[in-house]
């Protein structure tokens, strides 16, 4: 099947090259652009989505991702709606937690499944439609080239449409806190769009099941000595996704969970 492979820069709105070639899926492409990229073996990218009661949206999200990537893994975290059925019908591989354990636990399950199935690169992606599929390439490309092991998406380097000011304030506070406690300098500590190489995924072990896993992940990446960088991504805030976001009291709980993990066994 002949297709056109657009090679994207770190800013997704800029196309820096275009290659005509025989491709089935982007990760199998043999492409030449500004910098030569040749791969004889396929670079298996697994997209992991943790979903809890996302039945209304998960099918669309899965179809959007499947249009670009072959391996889509949805971890249904004990949903009480038809999330698993919708995801399966859309074509994803679905793992099911029989009880709700939290996003951190669901992502770790998806990561372990992906590693067992030969993933070279694992991308975590939100199931509520906040993330843009087009941004994934900017995260996987540096890993495929061997430049880094982890790429963290940052809405503050990219675009955050309709981000409420209160949410922005809370996220900025999270960034400052992470810098103070972990001494890790990133611009967006709670962005669900991240990419890990196989090596990085094997070193990571998310133990904080709920939302505090985001801070724990950054901590582990930093302590492991893995090379990482940030990449700009877009976040689409809709009424649906804002409902699912964290309240102020939940943010305090995330903070306490993370601090307690650092001092307790």
């Amino acid at each position, binding site marked *: 099947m002949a297709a056109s492979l657009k090679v994207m820069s770190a800013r997704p709105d800029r196309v820096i090259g275009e290659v005509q070639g025989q491709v089935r899926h982007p990760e199998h492409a043999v492409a030449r652009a500004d910098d030569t990229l040749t791969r004889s073996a396929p670079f298996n990218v697994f997209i992991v989505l943790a979903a809890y009661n996302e039945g209304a949206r998960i099918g669309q999200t899965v179809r959007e991702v499947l249009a670009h990537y072959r391996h889509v893994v949805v*971890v*249904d975290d*004990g*949903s*009480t*709606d*038809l999330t*698993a*059925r919708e995801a*399966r019908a859309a074509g994803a*591989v*679905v*793992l*099911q*937690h*029989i*009880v709700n*354990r939290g996003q951190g*636990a669901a992502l*770790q*399950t998806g990561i*372990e*499944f992906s590693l*067992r199935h030969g993933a070279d690169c694992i991308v975590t992606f939100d199931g509520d439609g906040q993330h843009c599929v087009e941004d994934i390439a900017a995260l996987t490309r540096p890993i495929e080239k061997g430049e880094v092991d982890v790429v963290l998406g940052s809405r503050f380097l990219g675009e955050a449409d309709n981000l409420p000011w209160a949410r922005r304030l809370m996220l900025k506070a999270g960034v400052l806190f992470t810098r103070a406690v972990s001494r890790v300098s990133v611009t967006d500590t709670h962005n669900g769009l991240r990419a890990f190489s196989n090596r990085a995924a094997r070193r990571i072990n998310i*133990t904080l*099941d709920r939302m505090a896993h985001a801070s724990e992940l950054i901590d582990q990446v930093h302590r492991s000595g893995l090379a990482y960088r940030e990449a700009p991504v877009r976040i689409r805030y809709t009424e649906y996704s804002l409902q699912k976001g964290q309240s102020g009291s939940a943010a305090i709980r995330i903070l306490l969970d993370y601090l307690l993990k650092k001092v*307790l*066994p």
Partner: protein
Amino acid sequence: MNLFQVLGVTLIGILVALSVISVLRRRACWRSGSLWILIWLATGYVLVRPGITVVAARAIGIGRGADLVVYSAILMTMVGFFLTYLRARQQDRIITRLVRHIALTDAASWNADPGAPRENVNVPEGDHVNRSIESRRP
């Protein structure tokens, strides 16, 4: 002895007997059983001889024996809460590991038999209530 001491000593006696029985029936190891027996006996002694608390309190710089008892009770309660919290965290991690193992094992069995019917384990047809774990398996 007053009525409170009589009732207290009776309760302590029952607790000591239960601890001894637990050790003899091997429901508890002798170390923890012995520790609890000592604790009950010490509590019983304080009940019978409350004046000992005054001696102990003055020895460590607290004015009244009753204050020592209250402070000790608060401290032991906080320690108990903390240990319970740690255990709850540990159990949380164990539950997550179990849930993950089930999810990965199920995925492997479904991959091995793609034609097998795949049910939504949490939502029966027309019903949006979580089913129990026992009713999940055929």
